[in-house]
C-alpha cells in the first residue's frame, strides 16, 4: 500500500512529504555517480523524522533533491510530492520558490551559511519580504521576535550586526530563526549540530524540538550521529550507500533484531564509562562508492551485510532485514522480522553475547542506565529472565 499522489480534489492525506523510488545521478569525470538508488520515504505532517547515515550516504542529497537544490547536471527520477502536490508538475524554479517558502532549512556550517558582507537584518528579512511581501518594518519586527525566541539577547540591536560578530552557536540560532520566518510547514535540520561544540549541541537540539512543538511543524533531523536522533524523533531512516537500509519508529530502533548497520553505528558511540583506552569498533573495508553500478536490493544488501559483519569477530547468524519493498506505510506496521526469543539473542552478534556475559557478571544494566545501551541491556536482561 504505497501512498498515492492525490489530486487536489481529494482530501488531504496525512503525508506532507512523499518520495517514491527516487534516483539521483550526476556525471563526473570518473563516471556516473549514482548518489541515490531508488529511495522511498515519507513524512507526516507534524512528525519528526530522523535520517541517519555516514557522510556520502545520500541523506543530504535526498532532501536536496526534493527541494530542488541539487547541483546542475544531475538527473532525478522518481516521484516526489509535497503536501499532495506532485512536484514534477512544477518547473524547477517555481518548485524551488514554492518549497523555499514552505520548508525551512538549517544547514550544517553556521560559519559559512551566512553572507559575511550583509547584515543579519537583511538576511533574515529577505525571504519573508519576497514570499509574503512584508514591508521592511514588518520584517524587522518579525525578525526581532524570532531572534528572541531562539534565545539571542538584545535582538533589536543585533539585527544591524554582521555574521562575524556572532559566535558559532549564536549563528546557528540565527539560522534557525531565519528558517522560521515564513512559518514553514517543514523544518529540516541538516547536520545542524555537527559543526558545533558538544556542549552547545544539546541547546540547539532542545530549541528545535521546542519550536517544532510550538508551531506544529514537521521536522527532519539529519545526522551521522545516532545519539542526536534517538530520543528526539518519531521515526528513523538509516541510509547507507545511497539506499535506505533500515526504517522504523525510533522507539524500536534498538529492539532486536537490530539492523547490523544500525548496530554498527550504535557501537561507534563512545560510552562515558568506557575505559579511556577502549578502542571503538570499526568497520573494515571501505564504503561503497557512488560509482558502483546500481544493484537490485537483495544483492546490495548481501554485499553490504558482509561489510557490516566485520564489526564483530564472529557473527553467528546474519540478521534478517525487513522486506526490501518498504514504503511510507510501513511506519504504521513496524515489521521487525523474527520474534525475539532466547536463542535469537545470538543473532545480533557478539554485542549481545558480551552484554550477556556482562550481565552474567553483574552490573551492565546499572552501567548502561542513562546511555543508549540501556534499552539493549534491559532487553537482554529481560530475555535472560525469560519475560519476553
Amino acid at each position, binding site marked *: 500500500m504505497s501512498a498515492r499522489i492525490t489530486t487536489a480534489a481529494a482530501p488531504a492525506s496525512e503525508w506532507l512529504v512523499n518520495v517514491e523510488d527516487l534516483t539521483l545521478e550526476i556525471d563526473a569525470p570518473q563516471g556516473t555517480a549514482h548518489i541515490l538508488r531508488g529511495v522511498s520515504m515519507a513524512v507526516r505532517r507534524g512528525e519528526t523524522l530522523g535520517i541517519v547515515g555516514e557522510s556520502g550516504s545520500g541523506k543530504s542529497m535526498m532532501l536536496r533533491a526534493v527541494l530542488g537544490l541539487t547541483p546542475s547536471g544531475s538527473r532525478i527520477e522518481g516521484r516526489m510530492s509535497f503536501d499532495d502536490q506532485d512536484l514534477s508538475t512544477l518547473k524547477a524554479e517555481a518548485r524551488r520558490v514554492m518549497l523555499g517558502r514552505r520548508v525551512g532549512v538549517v544547514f550544517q556550517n553556521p560559519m559559512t551559511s551566512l553572507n559575511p558582507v550583509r547584515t543579519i537584518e537583511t538576511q533574515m528579512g529577505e525571504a519573508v519580504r519576497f514570499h509574503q511581501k512584508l514591508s521592511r518594518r514588518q520584517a524587522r519586527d518579525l525578525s526581532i521576535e524570532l531572534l528572541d525566541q531562539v534565545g539571542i539577547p538584545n535582538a533589536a540591536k543585533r539585527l544591524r550586526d554582521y555574521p562575524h560578530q556572532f559566535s558559532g552557536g549564536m549563528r546557528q540560532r540565527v539560522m534557525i530563526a531565519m528558517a522560521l520566518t515564513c512559518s514553514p510547514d517543514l523544518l529540516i535540520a541538516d547536520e545542524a549540530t555537527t559543526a558545533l561544540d558538544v556542549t552547545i549541541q544539546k541547546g540547539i537540539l532542545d530549541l528545535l524540538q521546542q519550536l517544532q512543538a510550538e508551531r506544529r511543524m514537521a521536522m527532519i533531523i539529519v545526522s551521522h550521529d545516532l545519539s542526536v536522533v534517538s530520543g528526539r524523533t518519531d521515526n528513523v531512516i538509516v541510509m547507507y550507500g545511497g539506499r535506505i537500509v533500515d526504517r522504523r519508529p525510533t522507539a524500536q530502533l534498538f529492539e532486536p533484531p537490530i539492523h547490523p548497520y544500525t548496530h554498527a*553505528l550504535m557501537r561507534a558511540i563512545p560510552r562515558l564509562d568506557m575505559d579511556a583506552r577502549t*578502542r571503538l569498533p570499526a568497520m573494515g573495508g571501505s564504503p561503497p562508492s*557512488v560509482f558502483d553500478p546500481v544493484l537490485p536490493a537483495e544483492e546490495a544488501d548481501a554485499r553490504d551485510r558482509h561489510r557490516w559483519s566485520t564489526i564483530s569477530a564472529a557473527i553467528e547468524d546474519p540478521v534478517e532485514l525487513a522486506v526490501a519493498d518498504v514504503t511510507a506505510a510501513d511506519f504504521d506496521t513496524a515489521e521487525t522480522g523474527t520474534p525475539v526469543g532466547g536463542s535469537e539473542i545470538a543473532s545480533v552478534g557478539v554485542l549481545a553475547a*558480551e552484554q550477556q*556475559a*556482562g550481565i552474567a557478571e553483574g552490573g551492565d544494566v546499572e552501567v548502561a542506565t542513562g546511555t543508549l545501551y540501556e534499552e539493549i541491556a534491559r532487553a537482554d536482561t529481560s530475555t535472560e529472565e525469560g519475560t519476553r
Partner: protein
Amino acid sequence: MTTGIRPEADPASPRTQGFNAVLKPPRLGTSLTLIPRLRRRRPRHVGRGMLWFAIIWLTVLVLAAVFADFIPGLPAPDEKIGTFAQRPDLSVGGLLGTDGIGRSNLSRIIYGARVSLTIAVVSTIIGLLVGVLVGVIGGYYRGVAESVANVIANCLSALPPLLLLLALVSAIGASLFGITIALGVVIADLYIRVSKGAVIGTTSREYVLAARALGAGDLRIIVKEILPNLVPVLAAIIPMAMAIMIVVEGSLSFLGYGIPAPTPSWGGMIAAGSDIMRQFPWVIAWPVITLFLTVLSFNAIGDYLSSRTDVREAKL
C-alpha cells in the same frame, strides 16, 4: 553462545580491535561540494588544444628566429626584393608579400622575432633577478627590508610603465642593451610583489619556524624551504610577464623608441604598415597576426600553468 570471556581481555573483541572511526568526520566548510568523492574540476579557459597550439607556435617561432640565417631562400631583412608593397607570391621571400620599401615581410617578421624574443627573455631574467632578490629579502626579513621593498615596488608602479620606459630608454639609449635593462626594471615591480607575497606566506608556515628553531642559517632556509615554494608561483607568472614584455617592446617600437631601423621589429612594422593599411592591408596584417599569436601563446601557457599551480586568476 556465551563465550564467557571478559570483553576487555578478548583480543578478538571489537573493543580491542584497531581504531578507525566507523563514521568519517563530516567535511566542514563548503557543504556545497557535490559529494565527498567527486573531484571538483577546476574550470580552465585553456583547453588542451590551445596549449598544444601555443607550444608548437612558440617552438616554430624560436627555431625560425634562431636558424633564420639557414633558411634556404630567405632574403635578408633589409634586402629589397620587390617593389612597394607587393602582394604575396609563391617565392620564399615573397611568401608574405613585401613592405613599403619592398623588403620581404616574411624575412622581417622572422628577424623581428629575434628582437622581440631576445628582449623578452633577457628582460625577464633581469626583472626576475632584481625582483625576486628584493622581494625575497623584504619578505623574509620583514621590518625595514620589507618597507624598502614596498617603497621600491610602489615607486616602480606609481609611474605608468610606458612613460617610465620612455624615460629610461631616452636616458640609456635605444639599443638592445638599453631596452632590455629598461624593460627589466619595469617588470621587476611585478616580481617583487609576487615573490614578497609568496615568501611571507611561506615563512609563516611551521616548517620554516621549525628550521629556524633548529638553527639553520638564513641562507639555507631561503634556498631550501622558500625558493622551492616560489617556483610554482613564478612559473605561472613568467609566461604572462613575457607576453607583457613583447607587447611593451612592440609599443616602444611603434612609438619610434625601439630598436632603430633597419633592424626589423614587429612594433615598427605595424607602425609603418598602419600608414598604408587601407590599400595594402597585408603589410600590416602579418606582423599583427604574428604578434597576436605569440602573445596569445604565452598567455595560454601562463594560464595553464597558473591553473595547475592553484594560483588564483585574480591575483596580480
